């Protein structure tokens, strides 16, 4: 006979967990500035965790796996930064030398454009384009200064990530060991599904961004465009946001090409090149790399990007697609659970075969 006795549900048992969750949420809202690096670190730890798991299941202690990863990544970053500076220092030097003439040409271009527009459409004079442009040029250094605090994240985030990686899934395991045992299976099922879809998306998007960076780098070098290393890095990073890579590539490299060559032909070549990258991405990279990732409608992607921008600016844009993946998976699981657990749909019929076992 079973020793089970039916447990009478008492809502008082949820008071303490709910109070803890509310308390933490309130604290997080009060100190949202401090929470941000932790969110970023948790995201980075989530991306790096499969590498640590790879070594852990092969018997290497987690501590050594994390230290090994940090040393390797550190050495790699050092080599890449050294090589980039080798490339970039030349490019920065040349930019420093040619900037005054570039600035003059940009200003001249805007003045000419404004004069033409005002001549043809007199009402455009009211828009005061030249004043606005001068203001924008003045604002650039100020904008760059506001980015400086973000540099501290470069040191804080890897530091926090190190300790999150060391802890591994301890916090999650602790929580799982303390949820009502009967619900552990369904909670782990939900976590596995979110992990599978989010993991596939992140792995896919990082691989895709790296391949686009390589294509852009080789293509721009072949076209003999100045600052190709810098532009390719910019394209690579912006490829992490859907549709942004090719757009950033076209805009930045067209400006550079105009300043460098002063002709339309290289700009047209660049437009063809980036349209090509877009097609390669849509037809070859995404079907192969992203085949296991969550499928999102382009309209939903656009909505997610705009909503992300509205909620949290540039970081909102970066996090919008992974968060949308989670939301989509949660909705799907929610619908499935409604159908199975709450019997919204009739029970599925088990497979039946008429011929008996022989």
């Amino acid at each position, binding site marked *: *006979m*079973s020793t089970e006795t039916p447990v009478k549900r008492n809502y008082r048992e949820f008071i303490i967990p709910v109070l803890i969750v509310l308390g933490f949420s309130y604290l997080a809202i009060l100190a949202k500035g401090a929470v941000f690096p932790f969110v970023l670190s948790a995201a980075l730890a989530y991306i790096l965790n499969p590498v640590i798991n790879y070594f852990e*299941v092969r018997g290497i*202690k987690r501590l050594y796996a994390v230290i090994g990863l940090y040393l390797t990544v550190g050495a790699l970053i050092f080599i890449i930064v050294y090589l980039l500076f080798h490339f970039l220092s030349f490019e920065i030097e040349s930019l420093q030398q040619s900037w005054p003439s570039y600035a003059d040409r940009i200003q001249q271009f805007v003045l000419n454009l404004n004069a033409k527009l005002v001549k043809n459409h007199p009402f455009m004079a009211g828009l005061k384009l030249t004043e606005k442009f001068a203001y924008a040029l003045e604002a650039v250094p100020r904008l760059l200064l506001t980015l400086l605090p973000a540099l501290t994240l470069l040191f804080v985030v890897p530091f926090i990530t190190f300790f999150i990686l060391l802890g591994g899934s301890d916090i999650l395991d602790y929580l799982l060991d303390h949820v009502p045992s*009967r619900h*552990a*299976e369904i909670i782990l*099922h939900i976590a596995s599904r979110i992990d599978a879809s989010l993991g596939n998306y992140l792995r896919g998007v990082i691989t895709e961004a790296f391949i686009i960076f390589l294509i852009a780098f080789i293509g721009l070098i072949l076209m003999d465009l100045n600052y190709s290393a810098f532009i390719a890095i910019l394209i690579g990073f912006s490829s992490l946001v859907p549709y942004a890579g090719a757009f950033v590539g076209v805009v930045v490299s067209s400006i550079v090409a105009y300043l460098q060559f002063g002709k339309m032909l290289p700009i047209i070549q660049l437009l063809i090149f980036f349209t090509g990258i877009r097609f390669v991405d849509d037809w070859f990279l995404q079907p192969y790399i992203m085949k296991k990732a969550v499928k999102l409608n382009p309209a939903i992607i656009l909505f997610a990007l705009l909503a992300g921008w509205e909620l949290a600016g540039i970081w909102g844009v970066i996090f919008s697609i992974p968060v949308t993946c989670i939301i989509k998976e949660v909705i799907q699981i929610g619908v499935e659970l409604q159908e199975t657990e709450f019997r919204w749909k009739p029970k599925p019929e088990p497979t039946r075969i008429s011929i008996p*076992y022989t």
Partner: protein
Amino acid sequence: MFKAIRLLNGLYDKGTLKKIDFLKSIRLFEGIKKRDLIHILENLQERTYLKGETIFTQGDIGRALFIVFSGKIALSRLDRETGHSEIIAEVQPGEFFGEMALLEEMPRTATVYALEETRVFMLFKIKLETLLFARPRIGVIIATQLAKIMSARLRAVLEKV
């Protein structure tokens, strides 16, 4: 020399190596090479159930297979006519239950609870599907073993009848 060996040994987590050896002894994974068992371990979830805790109840939708790593589990079934539940089996370390969940998301046919503090590994359907497609070599062996086990259980039922 000994110092270097001790240092290398210090790098290894004996717990993980023990888990791999344990998986080698599971019938479901029979025939899978030790280096491939690593991929199975990667896809397993672990959880400890205290004595008396219910793991799942008869009628719940099944989503995972459970492998007992340590401790003891009881499987009980409710007789709808008499309203009494009876223990139909006890599961010892190295044995597993709930494999039907890997094939169909159907209601469980028994209630399962821990007879003592028990550590289990769970293999979820979604993780098995990932393994089947990403590593077909392992997937084929698991699918074959699963079919053999289901056949053996069916034969046991028929012989009982």
